[in-house]
């Protein structure tokens, strides 16, 4: 089955991973800007990273018939440096017209601090000013519940936000309902230990019906599995779900959400 991985960090993955993903049915992916594992020291470091996301990765992906899209921001882990964050936010518009840029992301919170909230709101303002879709990172583990509610509070306070153009990622059992009930899209991340398994993701699809719901691997430089979305597909099939429902979650929903971005010029496989 053709599928789209809506959240994967291919700058951290090998070319062999691109080949494997292609053979597993991945036809497109979107790569949100992410923390490198260390704090970058200057706005030029981010400028180089954004070139990698908008030039190098699309070319690597194309070798394997995969369409690569991306989202730009300074990650919440680096938001404690507010002055650098503001320099990066001011520089991002240089890249918004690149042909694979879908919007602003993954913005959000990490430890739910004041500086993170400040930088998050400035990113949201940037997105609104430039008519961009938004991809949201929600915090990990014990911070997820508080952080997700803070993010939803901030988004719902802003009357300019079109909730249908916001994807709130890394939802789990205790956050998915509020995200969907408030009118946002939700993403489930298949991480081996710290987030969601394919089995629990299938449970959440069964409980919600799969509307406005996406599933991703968030494959990166840490413990993660870039082929996690096919694992989810197999789990859904094992339970007897229809190909139509599976395709909706792993293909049609990403296409519907991404299509709101003017640069999503997707060419389905004929």
């Amino acid at each position: 089955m053709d599928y789209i991985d809506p959240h994967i960090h291919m700058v951290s993955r090998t070319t062999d991973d691109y080949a494997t993903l292609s053979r597993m049915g991945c036809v497109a992916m979107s790569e949100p800007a992410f923390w490198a594992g260390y704090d970058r020291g200057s706005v030029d470091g981010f400028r180089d990273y954004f070139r990698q996301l908008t030039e190098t990765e699309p070319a690597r992906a194309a070798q394997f018939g995969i369409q690569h899209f991306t989202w730009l921001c300074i990650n919440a882990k680096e938001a404690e440096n507010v002055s650098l964050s503001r320099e990066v936010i001011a520089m991002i518009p240089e890249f918004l017209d690149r042909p694979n840029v879908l919007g602003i992301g993954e913005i959000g919170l990490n430890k739910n601090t004041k500086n993170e909230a400040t930088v998050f709101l400035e990113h949201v303002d940037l997105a609104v000013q430039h008519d961009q879709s938004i991809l949201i990172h929600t915090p990990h583990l014990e911070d997820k519940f508080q952080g997700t509610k803070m993010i939803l509070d901030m988004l719902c306070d802003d009357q300019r936000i079109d909730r249908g153009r916001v994807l709130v990622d890394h939802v789990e059992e205790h956050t998915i309902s509020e995200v969907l009930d408030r009118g946002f899209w939700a993403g489930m991340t298949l991480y081996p230990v710290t987030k969601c398994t394919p089995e629990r993701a299938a449970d959440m699809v069964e409980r919600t019906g799969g509307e406005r719901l996406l599933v991703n691997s968030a494959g990166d430089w840490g413990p993660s599995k870039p082929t996690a979305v096919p694992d989810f597909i197999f789990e859904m099939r094992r339970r007897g779900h229809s190909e139509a429902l599976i395709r909706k979650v792993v293909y049609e929903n990403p296409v519907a959400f991404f299509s709101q971005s003017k640069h999503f010029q997707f060419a389905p496989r004929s």
Partner: protein
Amino acid sequence: MTAGESHPQRTADAVLEESFLQLRAKLLEIGATLDRLDRCGGAGELSGANSQKRALLDQALEIVGSEQPDRAERLQQLFSREYQQDWRQKFGIGSD
């Protein structure tokens, strides 16, 4: 069952049968890990923070063994910090 709920016709027997060995293995892992803790002195040897974590695990096991639904969501809530409704005032960030 919620309004959006949708799943193929699978019987409780089928779900249990396909899950039994995995559940058995996971329960054995829990039992063996708690035994390992005991062999290292048990709960009495744990520092303050880890003692709280151990107590959380006991509460989690109670949730797993309870008859009420939504066990996964209740486990997530147990392992979450409580939502601070006054976070805006604390941070000096107002709502529009």
